[in-house]
């Protein structure tokens, strides 16, 4: 139990060592990457231990400030896996940036933050972890040398500041409700009723909605995701986002478990209703907006919004089922884990590919010619996003939709239609990748390895997905 914490500290340590070493001029990028990799490895081992420990029980750290259960442990692990893939993909090109030590340093540090985000059981811990991870995100986006990145980062920071303000308000509301600035369990404080709980709910939804790209708090996202450097986006859209999904899920879970607050007003379904409406708006918006751009990074950005929409459907189901049918509620949780992992496994390598292959759809044409394994891997990742069985993405959607079906068939129907619509742009990208041929290979071997690894994981975990259920 303590071992997990020490490994997390090791992760943090690796991110602190990197700048120290890199400041010495004679040191190249290789040792830096190695240390970063060591940090990620420590994190992976730690989260694996965490998953093992959290089976069937709850693991408390810091006197219950950070609490991990099987769900949050799996989310922690998922973030680590995705980060590892992103690091592998980034093992060459970012090393050429003048700022590269920061990249390799912040990557493990963001994972350290995710451990707290996913496990936070107190509003103040949420605030602290939020600040840590948010600032890391801003910096990562700003790191690359190009001008677009700086512009995107400024945009991100501005909107993020307002979101942080709202989060602060939420923390305050929790404290006010409890008449105490001490440790408050997550969710909604017991004393909070009616107006206050509604206020708190909208504040946290607006704040986390900003992070996840939930419509109508998503405005910054397409711009940042499509204009910032793909490798930076890979981290923000991958491991970091998984951490925030875990946090939102815990808050929804806690809120929907209380016999007061939301439930006293709407029989336990109002929260689910709000989430369902947000889910429909988000997935529909993302899928439709993704239909026509020719910029691959823009397509991926909108499709990220759509995927958050699917996860919100799972959250809506969770909010409804939590007190009604705990068995199905855990299926919704499993769906959220698998969907998040599948999403991250696909998105991290694909975003990483954009800077190397080019942002325009035409640039992606004929990847098959340069590397067959890469193009097949890209196709697998796209198909997983689309939800084609037996890939991992299929199971995530399946479990979410099964759970959601007992809440609202209409929601599932709309989600299915949305999945169908999404095939239009995924297949469009896939067709470009698989047809035509390129003369020379322009993709680094490390990125190729990351794509192949991610697609193999997507296939293997997809085949094992039903077995994964018992872990969550």
């Amino acid at each position, binding site marked *: 139990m303590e071992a997990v914490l020490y490994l997390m500290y090791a992760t943090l340590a690796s991110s602190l060592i990197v700048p120290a070493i890199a400041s010495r001029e004679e040191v190249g990028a290789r040792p830096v990457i190695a240390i970063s990799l060591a940090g990620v490895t420590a994190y992976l081992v730690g989260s694996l231990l965490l998953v093992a420990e959290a089976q069937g029980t709850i693991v408390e750290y810091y006197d219950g400030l950070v609490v991990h259960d099987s769900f949050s442990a799996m989310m922690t692990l998922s973030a680590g896996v995705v980060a590892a893939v992103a690091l592998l993909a980034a093992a060459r090109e970012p090393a050429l940036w003048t700022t590269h030590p920061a990249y390799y340093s912040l990557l493990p540090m963001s994972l350290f933050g995710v451990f707290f985000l996913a496990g936070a059981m107190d509003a103040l811990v949420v605030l602290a972890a939020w600040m840590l991870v948010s600032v890391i995100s801003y910096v990562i986006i700003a790191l690359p040398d190009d001008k677009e990145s700086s*512009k995107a980062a*400024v*945009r991100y920071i*501005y*909107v993020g500041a*307002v*979101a942080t303000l*709202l989060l602060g308000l939420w923390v305050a509301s929790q404290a006010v409700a409890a008449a105490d600035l001490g440790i408050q369990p997550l969710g909604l404080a017991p004393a909070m009723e*009616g*107006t206050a*709980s*509604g*206020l708190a*709910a*909208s*504040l946290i*939804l*607006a704040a986390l909605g*900003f992070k996840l790209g939930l419509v*109508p*708090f998503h*405005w*910054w996202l*397409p*711009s940042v995701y499509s*204009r910032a450097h793909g490798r930076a986006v890979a981290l923000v859209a991958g491991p970091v986002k998984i951490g925030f999904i875990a946090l939102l899920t815990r808050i929804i879970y806690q809120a929907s478990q209380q016999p007061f607050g939301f439930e006293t*007003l709407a029989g336990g379904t*109002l929260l689910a209703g*709000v989430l369902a409406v947000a889910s429909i708006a988000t997935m529909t*918006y993302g899928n*439709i*907006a*993704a*239909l*026509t*751009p020719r910029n691959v990074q*823009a397509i991926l950005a909108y499709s990220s919004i759509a995927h958050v929409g699917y996860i919100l459907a799972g959250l809506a189901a969770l909010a409804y089922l939590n007190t009604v049918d705990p068995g199905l509620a855990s299926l919704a949780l499993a769906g959220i884990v698998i969907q998040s992992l599948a999403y991250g496994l696909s998105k991290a390598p694909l975003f990483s590919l954009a800077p190397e292959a080019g942002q325009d759809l035409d640039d992606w044409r004929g990847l098959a010619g340069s590397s067959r394994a890469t193009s097949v891997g890209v196709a697998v990742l796209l198909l997983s996003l689309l939800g084609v069985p037996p890939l991992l993405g299929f199971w995530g959607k399946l479990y979410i939709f099964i759970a959601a079906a007992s809440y609202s068939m209409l929601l599932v129907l709309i989600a299915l239609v949305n999945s169908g*619509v999404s095939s*239009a742009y995924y297949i469009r990208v896939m067709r470009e990748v698989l047809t035509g041929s390129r003369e020379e290979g322009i993709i680094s071997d490390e990125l190729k390895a990351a794509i192949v690894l991610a697609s193999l994981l997507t296939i293997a975990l997809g085949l094992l997905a039903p077995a994964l259920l018992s872990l969550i």
Partner: protein
Amino acid sequence: MVEPGYVVEGFLPWSLAWLAPYIGAFILALAYIAGSRNDKLYWGVSLVSILASAIISTIAAARVLGGEPIYAKASGYWFPWIKVTLGTYIDGLSAVMALVVSWLSFLIALYSVKYMEGDWGLHRYFFFITFFVGSMQLVVLADNLLLLFIGWEGTGIASYALIGHWYTDEEEYWVGVPGRRALGQPMYFEPSHSAVRAILFTRIGDIGLLVGTAIIYLTVGTITIPELVQNAAAWIGALAAKGILPSLLLIFTLGALGKSAQFPFHEWLVTAMTGPTPVSALIHAATMVKAGVYFILRFAPIIIVGALAAGEAAKAQALDYFTIVAGLGAVTAFMMATMALVSNELKLILAYSTASQLGYMFIAGAAAGIIAYHGELEAALSSVMAGLSHLVSHAVFKASLFLIAGWLIHVAHNRFIDTMGNYAKYMKLTAFSLWLAGLSLAGLPPFSGFFSKELVIYYAEEAGIGPVLWLAVITAGLTAAYTLRMIIRILHLPPREEGHGHEPHEAHPIMLGPYLVLALASIILGLAWGQVSGVLSKAAQLTAAIGEAVSLQVKFAGLTYIVIGLVLASMGVVGFLYMAARVDFMGIVSRSTAARMIHDFLYDRWYINSIYYIVFVGGFTYIMLSLQLVDSLIDLLYHSAIPLLAALGAAALRTLHRGRTDYYLTLYIYFASLALLLIYLYWR
């Protein structure tokens, strides 16, 4: 009513009656795949396997008519989930049928050896003939409806393949006058076209048979014929209680109506004449078209017995059904006879005549049900056997007529009788055969055709439905007229047109033999009608659901004399008009508008074919066009409208993202405030 007792026996050897030709066909298929094109092998295997079937059928018939019905079935279920066995059921009815089918098949296959000599499709021909005989025997001998259906479809496939035998569609194999149109629709048919017509027309009915079988299974839980007989009262009663007995039976009978070319399904049989003539003789005169009649004769007694036992409602509903069938039979008999009057294609005359005579058999089967309703069960069952007797006598003389036609068409090298003439001078035996078989068709005593038709008319009178009876009587007169016209035109009048056929001469013995034997049989069966009716009566006694001896002696009464008088009168008139007065009918037709309208109406088959094409083919064309319209609209929707909308939607959603930070901030704060406000208002 005593059910004929039977002991269940092993599947073999009796099932070889239908298995043998199937085995023969299988061997031929293997030989063909193996690459053998030895003509002798093909007709040899075919003849041997059909002969084997005939011999087994004969032995079986001897045993059955000796008082011992045969029920041979394989142990265990064939299809366990619907409890269907694989078995051969031979009672009086099927024994007689199998005997007729197998021996006629053998004689016609023998004739084919010479007829098809040198034909490029000989191997295919003998394969399908053999396959056909197996299927036909299966229809007759099957112990359950599923097996019957398999045989039924087998005959249909063979019929299809053989009608289209000359699928290269040379004009000499067509039916109808090339270029002739009625109501704008072509009235000439190529073999490949005719084959498709045949399979389409009969398939409509077959769906009915299949649906009917399924409903019967769902109602009574069995489709095994002996069990259907035992439970007749139960299932007839159950269906009658729901009020669906007549409609179900009609659906069930659709297959029979289609197969036996009864109105409104008769069109396919006419154009089926594009097949080789032995095929017309075997499939489209002697056997397959009789499958529908056999079906009626098989089920009429079951329905009668069941309805009588099931009570008044069932009886009344059965009466409706039988009345409709009798009506269809009578209409077909009359309609087809009128067409035969004016036709100038030898095989078409015979085809019309076949459908017409099949109508008589349907009248007999249906009259049985009507008579039973009036309470005379013995007369009713006799009527069923009258149908069988007409079936047998017709099979014999019509096969003979077709085989003769095959030779005559070969001699004239033309299918129209206009180019035939004075053949009596050149081929005495053929002329003799034609006269014998023709007079039997005309129904002149003492030919077999006279007795069997007389019986049918007698029971039509007993049934007491006026229009049916009078159509049957008038048809008898018309039959005599067209038969005599045909004989005189071919044998005793000079040809109307110059042909370029061979010098007329007698047929090869292998071809002459079969039709001479059959022609002689038609008079011998008539002369020995006492014995024949005795055998049929014995068969009735041993038939499921009949089980008692019936009288098939013609009772000479008022109506009999009227019919004989009518037949003689019409023959006399025709003989006078053609031989003595030498009236030029075609001249009259070409001069008089009224005469031409009547002639064209009959010659173009009452315009029914054209109406079918206009309504169905034309109708489907319109449906297809409208579907195409719908299709192109959907196409437009998918390929233009939806992408356009999606593009517009996507563009609209993305215009909000203008890449300006202040703009994003404003939107974020605006929507956050809005959400706060909304939720606050709601929760307040």
